[in-house]
């Protein structure tokens, strides 16, 4: 749940609704999320404002980054196992690998355009996409398993591949939407018109690289 607290001039309470500032996750909460999957899922999916507030705290960014990376890796493993025991890492590589390949361009271009964001902070924002996508693949893995168990005929292999590709695309789309929602909830996008344009172009690049990665790994 979003934990927010009002701020601003108390005398203005009756004239206009107060803006709300989310409380960053505590170090303890971030530590707990590493062994409680549902907490980690809520941090990444639901507590957007708190997540963003934590990105703003340089002292907590490393922990947040760890949680996000672990979520991105662990939650994609079940879907990866469906591809084959020796290919369990490929879904994580699909999303996380693509994000890490594209991340330097995001950071350098945003610095070039004058956006004041630290390396850890922009990396946290970028890997959020892979974490959300991984959680969605976790939601989809029973479905893909079930379909593959009921579509065992050789001629169904192509159909199953198409369904899997669609579900992986939906997962990536959810990650991109989540990044957009986080950016809208914070103040980053208010730093000028160039950043939203940059983010859009970067997301297009990320989608393209993810597609190429999928082809390379034989997933799509």
């Amino acid at each position, binding site marked *: 749940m979003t934990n927010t607290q009002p701020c601003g001039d108390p005398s203005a309470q009756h004239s206009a609704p107060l803006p709300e500032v989310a409380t960053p996750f505590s170090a303890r909460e971030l530590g707990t999320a590493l062994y409680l999957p549902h907490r980690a899922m809520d941090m990444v999916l639901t*507590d957007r404002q708190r997540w963003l507030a934590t990105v703003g705290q340089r002292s907590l960014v490393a922990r947040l980054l760890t949680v996000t990376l672990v979520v991105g890796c662990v939650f994609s493993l079940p879907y990866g196992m469906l591809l084959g025991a020796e290919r369990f890492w490929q879904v994580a590589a699909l999303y996380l690998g693509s994000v890490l390949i594209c991340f330097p361009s995001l950071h350098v271009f945003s610095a070039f355009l004058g956006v004041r964001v630290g390396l850890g902070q922009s990396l946290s924002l970028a890997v959020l996409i892979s974490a959300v996508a991984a*959680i969605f693949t976790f939601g989809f893995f029973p479905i893909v398993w079930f379909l593959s168990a*009921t*579509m065992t005929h050789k*001629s*169904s292999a192509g159909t199953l591949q198409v*369904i899997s590709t669609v579900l992986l695309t939906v997962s990536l789309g959810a990650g991109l939407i989540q990044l957009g929602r986080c950016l809208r909830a914070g103040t980053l996008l208010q730093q000028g018109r160039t950043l939203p344009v940059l983010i859009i172009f970067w997301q297009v690049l990320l989608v393209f690289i993810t597609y190429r990665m999928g082809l390379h790994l034989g997933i799509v």
Partner: protein
Amino acid sequence: MLKTVSVLVLCSAVYGFSLGLVHSLKFALRNLIKFPLLLVATAVVCCLAYHVAGRFLTAKLSLWDVQRLVVESFRDLALLLASLAPVFLFLALTLAPPNEEDLGEYPWFLGMNVLCISVCGSCALVRQARVLLHRFDLSLCRTAVIIGAWLGVSLLVGSQWAWYLRPFCGVATIDAPFILGTEPDYQGATDFFQAVHNLFDPPPLSAGYLRHVSGGH
């Protein structure tokens, strides 16, 4: 929750029985297992996806809320269909049976079932949407997206599962095993999605099929 699941299983079994009776008592008895299995397995397989989609779209729905809402909507569907069971039972026992000339009133019976399943499914969804709107105070747009996501996931799994478990009913003169699974249909489709594709781009019928229709060997 246990009561809701019990009602779901019982009602879906009742409806399945009335549907299967159009073929034979054997098919009706099989449906006592197959129809509840269709709904329950669909809900179980999709539960993680329901939860992830729900949490992504709103913070107000907990895992327990999502499972309860989904089971309740499947229960509603089963309950609505069960209320129509006497109608289909009557129709199954009185329709003009297929003969050597044509299929009689069987296609009409089948169409009516599809229509009723759609109507009952829509009613269950509308009720679920009202619960989301009022109990959880979600906006209309968000409710529509959540319901749409849950419906899409359910249809993806449920349609293939129904295909795998077929036949639920059929022409009485043709017998079939308990489930046909991945056995190709008359157009060669081995899964639901191929069958849908074949509706729009039908493949040529095999020579074996034509011989079968004309009664040759």
